[in-house]
C-alpha cells in the first residue's frame, strides 16, 4: 500500500513537473500552440554608431559598428574592401584589414587579402539593439585575472 502511494505521488510530481517545464522553458514560439502562427518579434535595428566596440577576448574578430545593408561580397567585388583595403584607408580613414588576412595557411604573407579571409562577414558581424533572449553572465578575462590575483593567498 505504502509502495503504491509513493508511485502515485511520483507520477503526480512527474506530470506537474513536465507541465511546469513547459511554461518555464523559453522558446522562440513562446506560448503559441503548434497549429497557429506565432507573431514574430519586431525586427531589431542594426547598430550604426561608428564607434568601435570592445573585444571580449583578444582573438575576437572586431564587430562591425555600422550598417552593411546590400554590401556585395562575391567573386567580383568586395564592398568592405573599398574602404578597409590597404590602398583605400588614406581616403576612408577606416581601419585596415589586419595583416593576418594577407597570410595563407602556410603562414606565408601574400600581396593581397588571401582567399580564405576574403569573405568578411564569415567572422565580422554587425550588432543589433535586440534584447538578449537569455541573460549573459560573461566576465571579462581582466576581471578574472584581477580576481585570481586578489584571492591568490586564500585560494592556494
Amino acid at each position: 500500500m505504502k509502495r503504491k502511494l509513493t508511485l502515485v505521488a511520483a507520477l503526480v510530481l512527474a506530470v506537474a513537473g513536465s507541465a511546469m517545464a513547459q511554461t518555464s522553458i523559453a522558446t522562440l514560439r513562446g506560448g503559441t500552440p503548434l497549429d497557429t502562427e506565432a507573431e514574430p518579434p519586431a525586427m531589431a535595428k542594426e547598430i550604426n554608431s561608428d564607434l568601435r566596440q570592445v573585444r571580449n577576448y583578444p582573438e575576437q574578430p572586431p564587430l562591425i559598428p555600422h550598417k552593411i545593408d546590400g554590401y556585395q561580397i562575391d567573386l567580383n567585388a568586395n564592398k568592405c574592401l573599398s574602404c578597409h583595403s590597404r590602398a583605400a584607408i588614406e581616403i576612408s580613414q577606416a581601419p585596415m584589414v589586419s595583416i593576418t588576412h594577407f597570410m595563407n595557411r602556410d603562414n606565408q604573407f601574400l600581396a593581397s587579402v588571401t582567399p580564405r579571409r576574403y569573405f568578411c562577414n564569415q567572422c565580422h558581424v554587425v550588432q543589433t539593439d535586440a534584447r538578449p533572449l537569455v541573460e549573459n553572465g560573461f566576465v571579462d578575462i581582466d576581471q578574472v585575472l584581477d580576481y585570481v590575483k586578489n584571492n591568490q593567498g586564500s585560494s592556494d
Partner: protein
Amino acid sequence: MLGFLKRLWATIRRPSVHYSLGFLTMGGFVMGIVFWGGFNTALELTNTETFCTSCHEMRDNVYAELKTTIHYTNRSGVRATCPDCHVPHDWTNKIARKMQASKEVWGKIFGTISTREKFLDKRLELAQHEWARLEANDSLECRNCHSDESMDITRQSARAADFHQRLLFTGEKTCIDCHKGIAHQLPDMGQASLLIGAGSAQDVSSYLDR
C-alpha cells in the same frame, strides 16, 4: 538625281495652286501638333521602366538586381525607375542619350547580351560606360533627387557625414566615385579599382613591360 532635286526645289518654291493660305497654315499647325505630340509620346513611352523591362536582358539581369536595393524598396516608398538614373532629364541631353541608345537597339537585334553568360562577359564594359557618363556629368542623375543643399548630414551616420563633408561638398569626388554598385551588382573591376590616385593603366604597363 540632280534633275529630280531641281524639280523638287522648284515645286517647293512655287506658290500653291489649289490650297488656300489658311488651309496650309492651319494644316501645318495641326500636323505640327500631331507629329510633335506623337514624337514626344513615343519618347516618353520608351522612357518608362515597363518599356525597359519588356526585354528579358533588362528584366532578368539588372532589374532583378535593382529589386533588392534601396532604390527599389525603402521606408518612404519613393523609388527610382530605370530612366531616373540612366536618362538625363533635360531635353537636349535626353535626346543625345536617346540617340546613343540606338546602339542598344542594335544590341537587342543581334543578341549582344541575349544570355546570362554574354551579359556577364560584357557587364564590365557596360558598367564602365555608365560610370564614365556619371563622372563626366558630375553624377547629374543622382543629383536630380539628391541635392547637396537638401542633404542634412546631421541626420546621417558620423561616417557618412564625414565623407560627404570632406569629399562631396568640396567637389573632390562625385557621387559615383564611392557609390558604384548602389543599384546593381558590381562586375570584377580588379584590385586596382580600389586605388585612388594610382598611375594610369599605360603607366603601369610601360613600367612592368620593360
